[in-house]
Each structure stands twice: as C-alpha cells, then as structure tokens.
C-alpha cells in the first residue's frame, strides 16, 4: 500500500495534466481572415435580402394624431405629411396617393355620459390587408421604464386580493397608494393610473370593398398576452372599500359601485398597458381582427382624445399593420445585414490590397523586437533604475 503511494507521486501522463491537449493553431493572419470576411459578406447579403423582403410584405399605416386636437377642424382636412407614414406594398392602386384626412368632432360617450372630443381620421387602404390586422397606438417620450413608475403597482391587488390600506402602503404603489381619506386606490400605483385612455373605434368603410358591410370590426379582446390572464383577477374588494385612481375619476366620477366596479381580468387594455415598455418609444396593441380581410378602400376611425401627451412633449400615433414572420415592419434589420455584408467585402478587399502590395510574413524573426534593438538583453540602468 505504502509502496503504491510512493509510486503514485509520479504525476500521471495525461494530456490534460501535461498540458498537451490536442490542439490546432488558427492564427488571425490576413490569410485566414480574408476568406472569413468574404464568406461573411456572402452569407449576410441574402439574409438581409430575405429580411427586407419579409419586411416589405408588411402593410403599415402610421398616423401621428397628437396634433389632431389643435390642428384639425370640424371638417376633414389633409393631415400634414409629416404625421403620416403609409407603407403599403402597392401604392399604385387607386388609393395609392390618397392623403389621409382628419377632423375634430364631438361624440357622446355613453360610458362617460358626456361628449368627448374625438378625432376622426379618414385614410385609404390601397390593397387588401390579410388578417390578422392590428391596431396599435404608439407613444413616444413616455417613460414607462422610469425607476419609480416601473414598479409602482401592487401585484396582489391586481391578482384580486383585497389589500388593506396598510398592505398597500407596504407595497410598491407609492406614491399613489391611498387617497386623502386613507382608502386605497384600485388599482393603485402610477402605471394603472396613467392608463392610456384614448378610445379607438372600429373601422368604418367609406368607399370600396365588395360586401355590404360598412364597418370593419376591430376587437379589443385577445390583445393581452395569455400569461397576463394569471396576473389579473376579479377583485375581492367591496366597491366602497376603494377609490379609483385620480386619472380614472372622469370615468368613475362617483367612485366605484357594484355595477361599475372594474373587472381587471377582462380589462385587456389595462393588462397591455401594465406590461411596461422598455424604451420611451413603444407600441401597444389596442385592437385586432384575426379573421377578416380588410379590403382596399377608404376607411375612417374615430379616436376619443383623453390622453394628454403634449404636456410632456410626447406624441401618440395610430398604427394599423399586418404582420409577417418578423412581426411588424422592420426594414432596418434587413438593411443592417446588407450593410455589414458590404462592409465585410470592402474590408476584405482593403486587406487584400494591402496584403498584395505590402506583404509581410509574420513568421519572420526580423520583426522581433530584440533583434531590432541592441542585442544586450540585460536590463539597463536607463530603464530600470
């Protein structure tokens, strides 16, 4: 036994221990890198092309209606060009050059029992849009990722638990926890309070189309993520236990009652809103239609204007879009691929030229630093003392 122990002092001759793992030695030299560059260029170009194509298949109309309230009049007027981005695949149709119009009207809103300033936008759809069709709103300069804002909510409350004022105070809803009377807000927190409350109507067909229906329904159901269903539940609060958050007061002027007590599990717009965006510019799904084809023609949409964005220099836009494998319209990705592929080729060519005109064999001792300096390697005073 002892003998074996003695013997085992000799280190075993394994490739790991002797640092002799089987290896090969690729080195970054022009010779190895140049082909790499060209290969990359060749790979990236078609990918970029494909992505561009996919992006071009997406039909998209974006109308910035921030200034509707100030610019539009009560009759249709052309929306200034800068507010509109219309990217349809076939702009040559009869509606191809149609400039969207807007007008400001007042519409009675039954849920608020009051007239609401509404922006009605008339726009053309030059081609048939295949389902699914989505209606988004796009906000800019809205900081949903503000450190205080982003966690200003109470998960338990959203899940339906009847959180007391004390519970709320201990949660994350600051600063919108309770009102002056100590009643908790429901739902509490900054996020819920600032719920985007512009209302979008379904599309009203003005011209074109084959069938007789003059309304193209856009549904506000199924817009939230399935996983959010677990997050929002019907509350166990009694209506008098809680008060609506300050921004909701217009909707619930007399507070909550048994009838109007909001059911968060079905308020998909809130669910969407409460999935906070990572960047200050973001899109949120408002309505969708997964079934019907939106035929080419003129359409109008009514947007009830409630949400103030000018106060913070933001904008709000309506986005009507179809979807491709890549999601929405995203020409940048494809472009980026193509640009990089071009850069690769250019770089490759530059290196090649340099290599051709100024060849330099790396494995040459004449480039060694100690061959070019004086030969005595012993450290010298000048350097060391």
């Amino acid at each position, binding site marked *: 036994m002892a003998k074996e122990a003695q013997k085992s002092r000799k280190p075993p001759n394994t490739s790991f221990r002797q640092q002799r793992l089987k290896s090969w030695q690729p080195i970054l030299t022009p010779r190895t890198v140049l082909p790499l560059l060209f290969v990359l260029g060749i790979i990236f170009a078609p990918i970029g092309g494909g992505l561009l194509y996919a992006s071009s298949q997406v039909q998209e109309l974006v109308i910035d209606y921030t200034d509707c309230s100030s610019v539009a009049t009560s009759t249709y007027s052309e929306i200034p060009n800068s507010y509109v981005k219309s990217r349809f695949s076939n702009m040559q149709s009869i509606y191809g050059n149609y400039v969207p119009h807007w007008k400001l009207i007042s519409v009675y809103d039954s849920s608020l029992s009051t007239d609401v300033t509404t922006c009605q936008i008339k726009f053309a759809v030059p081609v048939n849009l295949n389902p699914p069709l989505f209606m988004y709103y796009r906000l800019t300069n809205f900081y949903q990722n*503000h450190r205080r804002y982003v966690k200003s909510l109470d998960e338990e409350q959203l899940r339906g638990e009847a959180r007391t004022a004390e519970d709320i105070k201990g949660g994350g809803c600051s600063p919108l926890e309770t009102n002056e009377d100590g009643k908790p807000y429901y739902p509490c927190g900054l996020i819920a309070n600032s719920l985007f409350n512009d209302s979008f109507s379904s599309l009203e067909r003005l011209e074109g189309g084959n069938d007789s229906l003059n309304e193209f329904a856009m549904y506000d159901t199924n817009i939230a993520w399935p996983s959010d269903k677990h997050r929002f539940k019907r509350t166990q609060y009694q209506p008098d236990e809680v008060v609506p958050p300050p921004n909701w007061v217009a909707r619930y002027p007399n507070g909550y009652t048994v009838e109007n007590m909001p059911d968060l599990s079905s308020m998909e717009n809130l669910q969407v809103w409460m999935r906070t965006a990572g960047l200050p*510019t973001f899109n949120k799904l408002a309505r969708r239609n997964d079934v019907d084809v939106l035929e080419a023609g003129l359409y109008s949409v009514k947007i009830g204007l409630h949400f103030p964005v000018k106060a913070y220099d933001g904008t709000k836009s309506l986005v009507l879009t179809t979807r491709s494998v890549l*999601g929405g319209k995203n020409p940048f990705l494809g472009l980026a691929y193509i640009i990089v592929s071009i850069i690769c080729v250019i770089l490759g060519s530059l290196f090649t030229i340099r290599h051709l005109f100024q060849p330099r064999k790396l494995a040459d001792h004449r480039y060694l630093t100690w061959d070019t300096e004086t030969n005595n390697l012993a450290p010298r005073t000048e350097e060391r003392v």
Partner: protein
Amino acid sequence: MGVDDTSIQPRLSSETTHSLSIQEQQTSNHGGIMSKKHKKNRNRPRVRFFTSDNENKEEEEHHVSESDDAQSVRTINEQLGLDDIRAIDNADFSVLNEPPPAHDASDTYESASSMRKALSADAEQDNNVHVSFQDGFAMEIPLQNLPPPVEENAPQTQRLFIPPELLRIKKKRRLHFFNPMQWLGDKIAAFSNKDHRYLSSGNRRRIIINPESCESQIDSRNGKPFIGNEIITSRYTKYNFLPLQIIAQFSKVANCYFLLISILQMIPGWSTTGTYTTIIPLLLFITISICREGYDSCRRSSLDRVENANQVKVLRHVRNEFPVAKKTLRTRFHRRHPSSGMTKCTMDSKESVETKEVKDTTKEFKEAAFTATEPLEASAPPASTSLNTVVEETSTATVGPAPSIEATIAPSDTDSVRPTVNADPSAIPSTFFWSECDWKDVRVGDIIRLTSDEAVPADVIALSCSSPIGAMYVETAALDGETSLKTKLINSTLQKRCCTVDKITKLRGECISEDPNGDLYNFTGVFNLEDCKHEIPLSNNDIIYRGSIIRNTKELFALVVFTGEETKIRMNAVQKVHVKTPVMQKITNGIVSFIFVFVLSMAIFCTAAYFVWQNNNEDKLWYMFGNHLSVMPVLISFIILFNTMVPISLYVSMEVIRAFQSFLIQNDLDMYYEPTATHAVVRTSTILEDLGQVTHIFSDKTGTLTDNIMLFRHLIVAGQSWQHLGPEKPKLYVPGAKPGDKLEEYNDPELEGTTVQMLRCMHENPYTNFSKMVRMFLLNLALCHTCFPTLDEETDSYKYQTTSPDELALVHTAQQLGYVVTERDVDSVSIRQHYPLDSYSKPTTKSYRILNVIEFNSKRKRMSVIVRMPNGRICLFCKGADSVIIPRLRLNKLAHKKLNTVNQQKNLKKSVEIDRAIARHSQSTARPSLTASRPSMNRHRRDYIQNMNSWLDERRANILGPRPRSSTSVLQPRRVAPMARHSLAYGENVQSFSGHQHQHRRNNSFARNFNEAITKDDAAMFESTFSNLNSFASEGLRTLLYTHRYLTEEEYSEWKSLNDEAASSLTNRQELVEAAAELIETKLELTGATAIEDKLQDGVPETINAIQRAGISFWMLTGDKRETAINIGHSCGIIKEFSTVVILGVRDPSEGSDESVKGGKRLSMDHHNFTDPFSIMIDQLVSSHEAIRLKKLAHLVLVVDGSTLEDIEADEDLSRLFLNVVVEANAVICCRASPMQKAQMVGKIRESIDKSVTLAIGDGANDIAMIQEAHVGIGIAGREGLQAARSSDFSIARFKFMVKLLFCHGRWNYVRLSKYILGTFYKELYFFLQQAIFQRFAGYTGTSLYENWSLTCFNTLFSSLCVICIGIFDKDLSAATLISVPELYQTGITNEAFNWPVYLGSMAVGFSQGFLVFYCAYAVFGLRDLNDGTLFAIGQLLFTISVILINVKLMFLELRPMTIVPFIVVGLTVFVWFLFNIFISQEYSGSVVYLAKSQFIHHFGRNAAWWFSLFFIVITALLVDVSAQLMRRSVKPTDTDIFANMENDAFVRSRFEQESSEFLRSETADEEKQVEDFLAFREV
C-alpha cells in the same frame, strides 16, 4: 595617546581590547546586578592601566607581557610586510578613553574605512569588521567600541570622484496611501510581540555561571528575564488570529470596496439590483481566505511545537532532599506560559504537577540516582582543588589571550587532567542531575550536554568535549550551507576546567558576551571565572550556534548564551516575513482604482444627467405625480448598478485559476525527478505569475548548482595532463577481482591520455624519469592530507573521514591509482602500493612517519607534511593554490616567466574573444534583411528555413560563444549545446573546444616519446603545466599544485627547533607557526598538479545560459570562498570565456585571480596605485560602467565578497554606485555571504530597482532568509533536507527544472493571468456600458436593463467559465518554443501582456463593442418591435448577445491553442444560459419590473426578429474584434505573434522541439510526426 592611533582597530590584539573594555564596563557597572560574592571580589578600583595601585601589580605585569607580545606580533607583521599595524598597543588603551561613537552613516564609513585601511593587508577579514546591518539594526552599538572619526586621517578623504549620474538612484515610485486597516493591524501585531532583540546594552550580555542557581537570569537591557528558547514562527496566536485576519482581509482595497457596496446595497430602496447579491459571495470568499490562513498558521505552529519539544539534557540542581524534590519538580515549566520567557525556579515552584510530568521526572531521577552513586568518590574535594591549582598555574603561565590551539602543544598540562576526563563524564554529584528538558525550556546560563549527531538547541559556548585536545566537529549546513564539517578547538583553559561534570558544578563566575546579533562569522566574549584570575577570551571558535549538529564528538558540555529569537539562526531569519503578493497586483490595483474612479464618475455623470433630465422632462411627466428621486438614492443606485465592473469573481476565479495552475505545475512530468520521486510543489499559489516576470535570480551554490560532490578530473605530471575517468569506467581498482583477470581492454585508444595510460606507461618503463615523477606525485597525493581511513569490511575498501570533500576526492584517487592509505596514526601513515591494472601485482605496504603537519588555512592556502620516508630520508610534501606555490618553487623565476607567457597568451586569446563577442553583438543589429526576390515558393521556403537556422544558431552563439557553424543542414540532428552537457562529466569542456582538447590529444599521443624529454626540461614542463592549469581553471576546475622537497637532517632539525619554539609560544602562536612554516616551504620541486571538479547538477550550464539569454541577471550568492565561487562561475557558465571578471575591492591583482588582470586591461584599471580599498572599488565600478557604456565589454561579471559588501552597505555613495553598476553587470558572484547578507542583497535589489522581480533559489537552511525575502522563493528539495523547500514558495528537485518552471509555466501563468484579468475587465466594461447607455432611455433614473437574477448570475454562471479557462488553458506559445528561445521570456519582464496600453486597448474594444451592440439592438429590435418592446425582452436580447459575444471572443479569439475546451465552454455556457431563460420563463414570477414569466417561451423566444437581431449583432461585434486584432497584428506584431506564426511551420516546430529536448520529455507520437515532416520537406 595620539589621536592618530585611535583610528586603528587592531585585529591581532582584539582579544586584549575586549578584555580591557569589558573590564572597564564592569567597573562602571559593578554595583549593579552582580551577585554579592562577586561584588566582594571586584570591589577594588579596576581602572587597571591608569592606576598605580599596588594590588594590581600582577596585572601590570600582565600588561607588560602583553605589550611585549604585541611587539613580537609587530615584528612578525613587519616581516610579512604589514606596516600598518604600527600603533596597536597604544590603540588598545585609547579606546577606553573614548566615548562610544554615534552610529550614523558617515561615522560608520569613516571608522570602517580606517579599520579597513589598517587591515587591508589582511586578506582574511573575517573577524575584524563588525557587521552593521540594515536600519533595523541601527540601535546596535558596534561591538568593539569603534573610535570616532578623526580628521587627520587623510587618505579616506581623497576618495575617487564618482560621476554624479552614477549616484542617482531613482526612487522607486510608490504611492503611499494611508491604510488605516493596515496601521491597525501593525499596531495589534506590534502589541502582541514586541521585538527587544536589537536593544543595546551599554554593558554586554552578562551571564552568571552558577549551576546551583535556578533563577532565571535577567536581561540587563530591559530588566526582564532573558527571552525563552521557544521559537514561534507562526504569525498568529490563538487570540489574535481572528482580529488580525479580519483586519488583513479588509485592508485589501478590493474587499473594502465590496463591503461598502454590499452595505449600500442593503439599504432598502436604494438598490435596483437586489439586496444580498454582493455580501454573500464576499463573506464566502473572505471566509475561505481566512480558513486557508488559519490552516497555514496551524501547520506552522505544529512544526514549531515539534521543534520546541525536542529534548536536550540540561544540568539542574536539586537543593532539597532527594524525595522531596521528586514531588515538586517540574521540568516543563513553560507549558502554561509559553511566551512569557519567564522561567520559574524549578524547585521553588509550588504549582501542581501534571501526572505525566511526574512520571517523566521520576524516570530522570532514577537515572540520576543511578549515576550519582560512584562518582562521589571520583570527584572528591581534594582532587578538584588540586586540579584547580593546576589550572591556575597554567593560566598564569598562559596569560592573556590564549589561542585556542594552545591545547595541542601543552601536553604536560593536559596529561595531568586527562585521567579525570576519561572517567565517566556523566557522573555527577547527587544534587545535580541531567534533566531531560524541552528545547523551549532551555535558559540562558544553563549548562547542557550534547552528544554526537545531536542538534544544538541554542547558541552555546563549548566548555569541554570528550576529545582530549578539545577538538570537536560541527556541521553548520543549516547556517551557512557548507556541508563540510567544521573543526572547533575548545579553549584549553575551559576544556581543562570543565572536563567533568563535577568540575562544571563547581564553576562560578560569569560569561560576558556581545549583544545578540546576526553575524555568523564573528563573536566576542569573555569568561570570568572566580578562581581564575585571568579572563578567558572567547571568539567565534568557541561558540556553536543553534541549528548546528554535533558530529564525531562523543560528548560536549556547553553553556547557553543566546536563546530563542536571540540565537544567530533566528536573527538571520527574516523576522517579518512579508506576505508575498504578486507583482502584477500593483498594476491590477491601479486598474481597479481606475475603474473605481470610472464607476464613480459614471455614477456622478448619470446622477447629474438625471437632474438635467428632471428639469427638462420629468417635471412635465404628469403621470409621475411629481415623484422625484433625491440625490443619494440616485447616486448610490448608480454606484451599485455599475459596481460589478470590478467583480468579486475577479478575485474568486483568480483563486480557482491559481489552484489549477498549481495543479499543472505539480503534475508536470518534466519537473519530476525520478531518483528521489519528487515533483514540483507549489506552496504559495498567489505568486504564480511572478514566475514569468523574474528579472534577477539569486542562486545558492552548494546543493543548488552543484551536488557538492567532488570529482577528480585531471592530474598533471611532468607537464602532461592525464584525464582521470573515475573508478567506474575502467575499473581501476577492483577489490574483489580474482587474480589473473588481466584487464586487457585498457589498450583501448579511448583511454589515450587517461590515468590508465599513465599507469601503464609507468608500469612498463618503471625506471624512467617520468615514472619516478609519477610515483612521487602519487605518494604526495597519498600523504599530504588529513584524512583518516577506516576499513569497510564488506567491500574490502577504505573509506575516509575528513572535513573537506576535496581531500576526500584526492585520497580516493590515490587509492584508485594504487596508493591506498590504509592506516593513519598521529605520527605515521601506512600506504599500500599496488598496480591497479593488474590484480596479480602484489601489494606492498610501507609506513611513513609523519614528522610535522603544517595545516591548511585560508590565509596560507597550502598545507605541508614533513615525512620520514621508509628509506630514512626526510621529505616535505606541500600542496596548495598555484598563487602561493609558484613563488616558493626552487625555480620560481623561471616559473614566473613561464607563467607570464602563458598568461599573456591567455589574455591575448581572451581579448580576441571579447572583441569577437562584441562584434557579434553589433553585427546582428546591422544585418541586412534578406527578402529580395523569390523565384518560387519552394526556393523561398528553403531560404526561409536556412535563414531561421542560422538565426537560431546565432542567437545561441551570442551568449554561448562561438560554436561550429557547419550544422545548418536540416536533417542533421542537433543536440542542445552538447559541449556543456557532457563536458564536465566526461572530460574536456568542448565549449572551450577544439583548442585544448586537440592539444591534449596530440600531446598525449606523443606522450610516450616526449615523456622523457620533457622531464629534463623544466621550462617546458612549467609552461605546459601552467597552460594546462589555466585551461582547467577557466573550465572551473579547482586546481592544486603538488610539490616536494627533500630535507637534510640538519636542515630539518634546525627548522624543527624553530618550529617547536613557535609552537610552544604562548602568544600569537598562529603567526609564529606560520612564519616558521614560511621558512621551510621554499625551494620546492614541482611534483604535479590536480584538477578537481565540483560536480555541477546536470543541465546547470544550459539552464544558466538560458537564463542569461532570457535577459535575467544571474547572481550567485554563496558562503564559499572566493576562489571556489569563481571556479564554479566558470564551470557553470556564469563566467564565459569572453567575460570580464571584476573582483571588487581587491588591490593586488595577484591576490585575487588572474581575472582581474584581464579585467584591468579592458577596464583601464591596470594602474592599481590606490591603497584605499574604497578607491579601488570606486575605480573598478566607475571604469566598468564606462566600459559597458562604450561597449568595450562583452560580458561583465562582478565578484564581491561578504565583507566588501558590508563596507559598500555602510557607505551611501558607494552603495548607490554599486547598485548602478551592478544592474549593468551580466552576472554577479557574491561569496562569503552570510544568510542575512544574502537576504539583504535580495532585499536591496527588490527595493531599489524599479520593476525588479527577484527570485531566490537555494536548498539549505541558510537560504531561507533569502528565499523569504525575494519576490519568489524557490527551494531545491535536495540533499540537505527540506528546510528551504518548506519555507519556499515553490520547490523543485533540480536546478534545471527552473527552465520549465520559469520559461514555460512562469510565462504561461503570467500570460494567462494577464489575459484573464484583461478578459474580466473587458467583459465587465462591455456589459455594464450597456447599462449606462440604457440610462439615456430610462431618464437616468437607474432602472436596470437586466433582470435581477440574470444579472446576479452573469459573473458566476455565464461568464466565469470562459475567463477561468483562459487562465488555465491558454498557451500562447508551445513549451518547445519558449525553451528554445528564452528571449521570449522578455514578455514577462517588460510586462508586455498586461500594462496600461494593453488594458486601454482592450477597453477600447469593449467600449466600441458596447456602443455598437446597444445601438444595433436599439435600432433593429427595440425601436421596431411591436409586441415585445418590454424591458425584459430587450434586456435579455442584450444579455444573450453579451453571453455569446464574451464567450466566443474570449474562447476563440483570445485563447491561443484551439482545443476541445473552447467548444465545450461556449457550448455549455450558452446552453446553460438558455436553460436559465427557459427556467425563469417557466417558473419565475416574482419580478414586478421584468415580468419574466413565459416571455421567453411564448413571446420573444418565438420572435424571428429577436433571433435575427441576435445573430446579426453577435457577428458584427465579433467582426469588429477580429478586424482590430488583424490590424494590430499586421501593423505591429509582437514577438509572441511572430513566434506563434513560426510555430505553425512544421520545420521550425521540429527544430524547436529538438533544441528543447534537454528540458522536455519527448513525445513519441510527435517525434514520428517530425520525421514525416522532414521527409515531406525533403521531397519538396
């Protein structure tokens, strides 16, 4: 008293001085601590020479005789040409008048210089200069009260001018931050162990000798008992460990930083990245560190415990009745208070006794009782009194300083004492007993008994030993590394007075010694015995230091003088062992602080930006309800957000890497030494990368470079050199051979020129002149030595006991050549003669009566025996160094002439060598490039290969010197420097090649014919002898000349009477004997010469060559003599044939060696008209510097010895000059250096040379201090035990393993760690930059881009493996390349792999990648995506990109050899990352902000845009990296890049592999491949 005289501190009468000054002190102190009895005796006025008190008559007489003696000394000295000693006697007295001098630098210099001046004639300055050590020692008052400086002493003011630029020492740039933790730690440490050792006492250490007393003696310096003999090397005690460790841990900047961060993080509401993500890993890390320290400390203290518990016999006294004592006796009184140093009296102790101790003591008492019965009669009072009177008579006769050799020539006195000595010495009176005592309980003043092979527990003064003449042998390997035994002759008076225990118990008096100090070569003290009127002076000869081992001495009584920490060995140990920190840590710390500042400024910037944003935006954000953040939370949250730019994992993973690196070093088969089954051991894993940055190597000689085996190589008889092949090759002396085995194979032509041939030659023509000379020579060899033969019954051969391995080799050779020393008495030697080549030959035994032996000493450098031959003639045999023998030859004029011719030739040759070397150096610079046109690839390749070949050859030649250049052919297998390999083992050094070798060959082939002719021609014989000697010396062989002279009876008897007179002289006997010897050792006939090789370890010259090629300055520090050191310097290649050797401070060129002459020519120093050694040194240093500057020197080797070094140290200007020149020298040899000096030298270089990384390598206990002092300490686990290895950082079995250790492991580890640190900083910067950029889109509010758990795991799960693997697997160049091109080691020395530019470059890459990645992701995904624009999706995209990018970049672009590892690492990490994503997407719903649940699986994970963005960004970012690297490589390739490319070439690779085969195990598989490559190429 003339002031002039005071400047001279005479050595020869130093004893006198001592006794005087000591008495003076006693006078002033006599009222003090002395015992009453003592006081009574000394009560009268003691100012001896200044009173005319009648009572002092005796002493006056003494004084007179003393000055008489001094007179006689003077005559002798004058005779020897020592005029400087003129005023000795006056100086003695004046010293007493002078106040003790202030000990500042100038004083030291001046006194030292004057001292030096006075003694410059004395070559051996061992005993005269008191060491003045570093600052810590400044308190110490010089041993001999040095006189104050005197202006009249003109010579010292005329010092040579030193050019001011050579005095400049750039102060090492060092930022001194006040570290409160460090300060606190120092305070605590200082509180727990105060160092009193360097306190000085006005009066010196006074030890009362009274065996009956059992009280601890008081140290007059602090009024406390003397320090105990316990040795504590562990830095911590049980109680201070934890606080000290915690302080130590938090005195590290990084730990403090993390602690701060974790505290901030735990303040609720401030952190956006979790609460405990810093504190937990930090605590874990610190706990592990503390545990490791704790383990180490435990190990040390258990070793201490073992050492402290060693047993020794101490004389103790029982005052009470026997049975009573039995109960109360405690031997282990220290157990309770180990550190108190206070020893309570054994008998008075009333404390309870542990049962075990009682048992011990009972046993002892039984022994004591057993031995106590009979000796009572033997030591009856009358006998002892009579003895005392005898002693008294003797001492009055031998007044004053009694040289220790006295005992040998006072036979009449010793005879009367002898019988008592021979009686049982351990017999002691009943009240005394030998107590078996732990080492730690030994006290100052104890008398101990040591036996053979016992280690000495403390510094002791030898009182008496079992040898009749008081001779004993001590092995001091642990102290000075010399393995040869030292003979000590005990002072005869002491020997007589202490020869039995009985006498010892009667001893009363005191011993006065110097204060504790670290000087191993000097000791002064004095014994005052009550019943002995005169003091007994003590010198270095009388003291035996702790750590020595008693050899060949049956029994020894000794008095303990210094104990514990005050022993010389402990004083020589580095007390405050500095915790070794890697050199690279400095720059790492710099970068860490830089990053910290960066983090801070980034946090401040973001905070400011937040407030700007708040002004412009936030106030308008109605949805925020006016909810602002205040300054602190923002700032702190940013600090927390960015803090991980310095990750804890940097330190944790570093530990992991180091563990692996250590593992690899320990498992390296190339560093495994089969014969002793030793593999390399890493003991300090924190400094692994320092191995790759060494600038100075300090090496011990014995046991490190050499094996301490002497081999007889050559002998020269009649001008012809004969090689001795040793006993092995042709079996010359075959003890067991049957008669008739005539060994015919000796006709082999191989044996031409060997001793075998010589013997045959002699045998066949026995009556020629030549044969006579050979016989004379062999007889000389067999007679002129001091070995004692013992017959080994088993092998029927003789073994010899001797103090010097050289002599052993000589006598063994004589034995092998047929002159076997079979017996040796005091006055006769028997030699058995036979013809070893023929076992038929009948041996004849002759007896030679030894008439006189004139012993060898380092001053005489020769030894003689006068023998009465069997035929009745008297013959003197003398052997010695050529420098002393040649002037004493009969034909000395002729010899001198011939010597000069030989030297001239040699100098000429050397000059040519130097010029050639210089020319080579400049040539290679100007060599034109050879890439003109290339007709074909094939042709190009051939050119390339030829080019490479010649280049590699040239590289080696530049250092090695010229070698045959014929071998540029590809297929010729190349051995590495074949000459250096076998040369020394098997004959001629081919390095000094052809020339000598051929000459010898030719000579020898003609030998038979010329044998006779040359024996008649003295001139030719001299010339041939000297030229052979010269060539041997330059190979590093130790040469000795053998001479003889027949004496007539009259001549001899005349001399004998003279010699006897000298020998019986009472004072200065040594000098007189030497003077007498001088008279007879003249008119010598040259018999022959020998050359002995101090066998080097294999591979040493190659290793040193490689080290020098690598640009590392090599220092050899040895305790050996200068000549030996220079010899070894030659043989191991420190001194090359084109080297210029400058021996510092040697005035007379012939005094040193011929080297300085050669050097002188070159250095224009041939005008040695300086007398002042300082001027000589300055001249030497300045002119060496000048010569280097003007490129007149090819290779400068400085030789300096210990005492010169002390002088240099003492003088500020000189030491600066020295430092400035020493860094220029290619190599330095430092001889006669004490362990402390070695350590100081290392420390000096370490401290004062910027960016120096020192490495000390040694094998013995004497190297420990040096090993601990250096940045890197390497121990050779070799023959002298494991002490050095144990306290070293790394231990290896052989010196040559240094090559693999430094050039491969060191460099690899350095590069690995550099890459690791760079990689870590890169990835952190890159990663957190995105956080910072993101803040722009989050209103600078501090929202984290990444989800908390991902963030927490980033450093551990997703990016640790890659950096760790870089730290383990990176091998930027293969071992073969690194070893065959040691110049590559410069990478580490110049810190090429890790410095600020490199760091900033890598950061620039990280920076650009960070921006690129973030904005790409923003543009192509974040801004565009309709559904997944959540924080989590964007964060995870960037995170995923980071994980992949970092892993791929580090593994494929940074890690050099592509193995399976990168694939595993990248695959595993990416896999784990996605697994993690799936996991949190599935399970984790806790996060309010990031809402991770189901996102990956159901949302962005299914989003093609997300994946396309990922792919695109990763590739683009990598492209940036690749282009950057390619640019750098093609614009400014580093040496590493070039060699990496070269390595890819099959031919170059195989060439490298061959060149390094000396140090690497060959791989058979690869070898086959090489052959294939060769063949393939050949066909091309």
